[in-house]
């Protein structure tokens, strides 16, 4: 007799939802087959727990209490008046509300030459071969639970293409909004291809208008073409009740330049996953982010980078500030295969613990098979430096303000790498708001 593990309420909800929804989700039979395979994997293994290495610090089985029903269409009036997360960035805002792309709420005027924007749901319904092909993922990525759930349940997303040589001046901002009560879940997939020598700034914001336990699962796949330059910045801003999972899959072409920044500022349970790969030589990439946690929040950043081509350079910098009983986890893995000579990779993670109960876990990993490479990693974890604090206090600056200055300085090293000024300023504003709340 085979022992069947006890299913958690979240696993039971998943098992009940998928069979009921699979045929009404967008896509042809091919798509359903891909969804079935993805869901089958999750159902077979159950939600991952701490003995599964990739989820060691984020025991999803224990932490995911429920899996709420699919979101309804949402109240357009409320979505329409929601204040933008980033002011003054002149970005082209594309709204994805409750898991559905809403062209009528999006800014599609005067689309730049070389920029195309479509709904993924529409593409999948029409049996678009390119979109369907893009759903077929590398095995290691496909098997990841957050990715598999996204594949199974995704309702929509954007297919964005930038033609070869097109320089898209206005940033494109994907505005993800969850609206309504009770709690619901959404799964969204974006497919972004940036052609040879093209340029794109892609901003993502993730928000919820209601303080309920919404689940969001957003996956963004970016192909950075040869010599292209892509700047990707995500602000994850949901309320403490929310569960937020993001997955970024990036393929970086020859001589391309790719930067991604993740600001994990929201959700009670947040997991940001990055699966990146250099697929052409002489490329550069920056992977950076900040996490700010208080209360009992938990945020996990898991980065897997395959330095798969010669003479590529990458910089990884993740900083976390943790207060209360919150917990931050960082796992960063860089693999350098034997042919990827002249690889230059430097990974750094630093955590600032603001309370006795705060916790930070860091797991940097380098897997190097090439012999002519420069790879480094570092991890630090500590409290606010007493000597620095005393110096500020001795000049009359009150303790809370002095601590805020030092926390901002700590995060600034990462934040200041953001090239887009409006997003940089919006993020600083958020960080200052967080610090004010803490100091109060």
């Amino acid at each position, binding site marked *: 007799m085979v022992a069947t593990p006890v299913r958690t309420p979240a696993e039971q909800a998943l098992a009940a939802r998928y069979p009921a929804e699979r045929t009404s989700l967008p896509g042809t039979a091919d798509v359903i087959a891909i969804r079935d395979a993805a869901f089958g994997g999750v159902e077979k293994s159950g939600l991952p727990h701490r003995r599964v290495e990739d989820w060691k610090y984020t025991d999803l089985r224990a932490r995911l209490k429920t899996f709420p029903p699919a979101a309804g269409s949402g109240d357009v009036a409320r979505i329409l008046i929601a204040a933008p997360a980033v002011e003054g960035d002149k970005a082209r805002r594309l709204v994805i509300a409750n898991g559905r792309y809403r062209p009528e709420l999006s800014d599609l005027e005067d689309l730049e030459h070389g920029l195309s924007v479509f709904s993924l749901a529409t593409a999948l319904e029409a049996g678009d071969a390119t979109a369907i092909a893009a759903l077929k993922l590398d095995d290691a990525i496909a098997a990841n639970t957050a990715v598999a759930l996204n594949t199974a349940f995704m309702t929509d997303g954007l297919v964005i293409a930038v033609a070869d040589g097109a320089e898209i001046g206005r940033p494109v901002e994907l505005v993800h909004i969850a609206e309504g009560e009770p709690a619901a879940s959404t799964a969204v997939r974006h497919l972004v291809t940036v052609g040879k020598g093209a340029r794109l700034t892609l901003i993502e914001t993730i928000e919820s208008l209601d303080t309920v336990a919404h689940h969001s699962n957003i996956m963004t796949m970016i192909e950075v073409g040869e010599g292209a330059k892509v700047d990707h910045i995500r602000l994850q801003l949901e309320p403490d009740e929310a569960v937020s999972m993001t997955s970024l899959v990036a393929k970086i072409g020859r001589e391309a330049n790719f930067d991604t920044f993740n600001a994990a500022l929201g959700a009670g349970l947040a997991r940001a996953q990055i699966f990146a790969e250099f697929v052409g030589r002489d490329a550069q990439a920056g992977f950076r982010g900040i996490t700010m946690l208080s209360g009992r929040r938990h945020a996990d950043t898991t980065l897997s980078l395959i330095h798969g081509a010669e003479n590529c350079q990458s910089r990884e910098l993740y900083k976390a500030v943790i207060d209360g009983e919150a917990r931050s986890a960082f796992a960063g893995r860089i693999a350098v295969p034997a042919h990827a000579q002249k690889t230059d990779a430097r990974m750094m993670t630093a955590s600032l613990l603001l309370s006795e109960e705060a916790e930070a876990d860091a797991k940097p990993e380098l897997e190097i098979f090439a012999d002519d490479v420069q790879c480094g990693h570092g991890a630090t974890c500590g409290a606010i430096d007493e000597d*620095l604090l005393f110096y*500020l206090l*001795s000049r009359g*600056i009150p303790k809370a303000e002095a601590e805020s200055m*030092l926390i*901002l*300085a700590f995060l600034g090293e990462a934040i200041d790498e953001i090239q887009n000024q409006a997003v940089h300023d919006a993020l600083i504003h958020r960080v200052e708001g967080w610090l004010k709340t803490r100091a109060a």
Partner: protein
Amino acid sequence: MLEIKNLHARIGDREILKGLTLTVKPGEVHAIMGPNGAGKSTLSYILAGKDDYEVTEGEVLLNGASILDLEPNERSVAGLFLAFQYPIEIPGVATMTFLKAALNSHRKAKGEGELTTPEFMKLVKGVAEKLNITSDMLKRPVNVGFSGGEKKRAEIMQMALLQPSICILDETDSGLDIDALKVVSEGVNALRSPDRAFVVITHYQRLLDHIVPDIVHVLSDGRIVRTGGPELALDLEKNGYAAYVANAAA
């Protein structure tokens, strides 16, 4: 102005100050000299409120009020300023942001409104110029990339901006060449006034050629063991601390 009465302090199990008494009146400049390990830096840190030290006995009054229960920032706005022997580098905190926060904290404590940015810039530039502090230095993070001399000049700039009533200079001469020593001393002398006092802590008489003290104390083994006029500093320069160290040991 500053009254230190029978001050005893320890760090861990080690008693460092063993009954230090000192009275500084407005307008006076006191020099405290003494051998290594006498407790000079401990005294400056205790006055500024660093919490590594435990005061076990005695009291410290600033303008008649006890300051030992005050936080370091409260002591600062009450008028006490410590020029650090080793000014701290604070990467990521812009010098101007820091100066503005400090100045506004002092203004707030006095019930004054915050300065506007142009007012603040004008004030800082005026003070910085006199101390040969370039605008490039002001653009850097606090003390980051400053030479030893630049750090000391930056300390005096902060002192000039905050206008304290009692200034503690902890070995401000250490690490300075002759030219920098002159600039720093001129900066200090410019701040001398009938209602401001200085406690200048130093190993060497050299600084006292430039900042001429009214009273010189010898600190040895946690106590003031001798007090005299400026001539005492000259005597120490010539004969060293041997006599005092021997006394203390006996």
